């Protein structure tokens, strides 16, 4: 009986000590971070006007060029490129476009803009990037006088 009492007292002392000793406590919860597919592209510099109104006598009209607009993009997806296309099915004059000063991708060769999408910048996967767009308009004397109004669309698409 005496031994039981001693044991109980000892247990109480140990328990009290542990209460003092429990100076650490923890708790936790779950934090989930999800990053979804992001593909954003924007045209900078606004609309572009190209005017052909000169020529050297005996030659076709002089080309008009503009490099005031450009692109910005963000893509966190793999295997992406940027294409260019116009809504104008049958333009009177030739309009070409070339990406210059590209960061975050690789410029394709200069393209004649048509209503069939063509590669403009490749290798834009998981990057932020920017470029300038150099448009060049050309006309022949047979094309006469007139205006082509293009709505140019740039699209981030799968390779």
């Amino acid at each position: 009986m005496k031994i039981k009492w001693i044991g109980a007292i000892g247990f109480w002392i140990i328990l009290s000590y542990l209460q003092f000793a429990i100076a650490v406590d923890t708790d936790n919860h779950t934090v989930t971070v999800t990053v979804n597919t992001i593909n954003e592209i924007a045209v900078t510099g606004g609309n572009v006007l190209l005017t052909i109104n000169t020529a050297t006598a005996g030659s076709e009209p002089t080309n008009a060029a503009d490099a005031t607009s450009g692109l910005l993009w963000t893509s966190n997806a793999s295997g992406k490129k940027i294409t260019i296309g116009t809504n104008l099915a049958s333009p009177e004059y030739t309009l070409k476009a070339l990406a210059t000063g590209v960061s975050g991708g690789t410029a394709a060769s200069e393209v004649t803009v048509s209503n069939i999408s063509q590669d403009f910048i490749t290798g834009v996967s998981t990057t932020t990037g920017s470029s300038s767009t150099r448009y060049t308009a050309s006309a022949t004397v047979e094309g006469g006088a007139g205006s082509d109004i293009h709505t140019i669309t740039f699209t981030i698409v799968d390779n």
Partner: protein
Amino acid sequence: MAYGADVAVLNGNVDLVISSATAGQEPDVDSDQTAQLEWNNWPGTSATKKITVQTNLASPNFTLKVQALNITAATGTSAGEVTLTTISVDLISSIPAMTSPDVGTCDLRYTATATASDGINVDTHTITYTIVDE
């Protein structure tokens, strides 16, 4: 009478979703301030305490930060915003002994950031808060 220290996370788990960006810039940051922390440094221990935080995720794809905001007066000092790693870092320091039922509380503001080069993925962290002697 209880002795020692307690810490508890309130308001459950947190979901952060990054799904937008301004063209030409890195993806937008997402943040959440719904979770809270509650603690007590019971009388009977003379030592001031601190609360540390860490994640179990050794190689996260994205950056996750947390900050203790709106700490109850005189119950601790925020260490500011900390980046979560598997190594515990101080989140709240200088927690004095309190008188029951006084408790310290704060809002937990989580902020997730990603770069375009980080790609698309999901990080699931188990975030552990520990109250220890300073």
